[in-house]
């Protein structure tokens, strides 16, 4: 029985279909709950880890098929270009504030994570794993790997940054008295990547447009900052 389980899960089809199935459950629960706190990615990861632990399936077996999904990160990053290009009219209008805002935001994010990690006594590996946590996963995961981080920890950090933005953004806008929709939209995309953008779209058209631009632009700035850091 054990041997049967090991050889079946060694097929790429196991990782491929288990990921799809777990994500499907995550999406369903997310829809039902209607709250960003019930994050589909987090649910899927929790289910898959539980499955591997309970059945004693090696992580390496899962990754034979799981690697297929990871490979698609490159084309998924490429299509961020379509988001920026779609918003080119509004982007041209606010070009200077958008560029300066994303650059400052990307720099503050990196410096802040670095300083706080030192303050809380996190080691080097954990620190570099957290550094790219505000940009979209498609950019953050390869960055984390390049710097010698653990991309699983990065994924976890990304979810925290994203979910907190999606949940608390309306409060932050009130606390900090952000009156300009251009500012709140761009800030949400810069701080909380795609999950922040989902919330920004709910807040309004301008917020959503700038937030989706911020993902690619702040991501690009973060790549440059971390490459020469």
């Amino acid at each position, binding site marked *: 029985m054990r041997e049967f389980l090991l050889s079946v899960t060694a097929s790429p089809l196991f990782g491929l279909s288990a990921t799809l199935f777990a994500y499907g459950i995550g999406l369903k629960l997310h829809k039902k709950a209607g709250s960003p706190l019930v994050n589909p990615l987090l649910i899927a990861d929790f289910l898959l*880890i539980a499955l591997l632990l309970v059945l004693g399936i090696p992580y390496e077996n899962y990754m034979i098929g799981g690697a297929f999904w990871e490979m698609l990160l490159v084309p998924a990053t490429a*299509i961020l*270009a379509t988001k920026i290009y779609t918003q080119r009219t509004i982007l041209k209008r*606010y070009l200077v504030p958008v560029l300066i805002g994303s650059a400052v935001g990307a720099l503050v994010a990196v410096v*802040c994570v670095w300083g706080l990690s030192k303050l809380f006594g996190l080691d080097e590996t954990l620190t570099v794993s957290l550094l790219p946590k505000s940009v979209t996963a498609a950019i953050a995961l390869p*960055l984390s790997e390049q710097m010698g981080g653990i991309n699983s920890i990065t994924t976890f950090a990304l979810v925290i940054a994203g979910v907190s933005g999606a949940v608390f953004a309306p409060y932050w806008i009130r606390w900090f008295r952000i009156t300009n929709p251009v*500012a709140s939209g761009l800030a949400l995309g810069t701080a909380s990547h795609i999950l922040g953008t989902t919330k920004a779209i709910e807040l309004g058209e301008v917020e959503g447009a700038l937030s989706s631009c911020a993902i690619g632009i702040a991501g690009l700035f973060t790549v440059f900052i971390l490459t020469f850091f």
Partner: protein
Amino acid sequence: MNIFKQLTALSLLSLAGVAISHLIPFPFPAGVVCMILLFLLFCTGKVKLSHLQETTDFLSRYMAILFIPAGVGLIRYLDLLKSSFIPILLVCLISTVITFAATAYTVQFVILLQEKYRKGRDSRA
């Protein structure tokens, strides 16, 4: 373009991105190279958004599935996560709020400066 052509185009673009990122003398994510390439292609007008519509719609809608395997990798770091859970959580939460505020204030400030500059220019004219 039909789905077959879209997939072919997107995988060739990705492969080109991988090739270029190997040529760059410092580590640079292949996906980001592709993002810049595709943006330039859109700007030249040779490639239109509609050419890749179905594939890009699908990938952006379900993008989170691509990050699941990395998250499953946490299975190898459960002890590390358990021992550093609170600091990791705090670093992420605090830095996200500060990043949000810093970005929003910068944008508002720059827009204010621009308006002042424009007003100054108009009153001189």
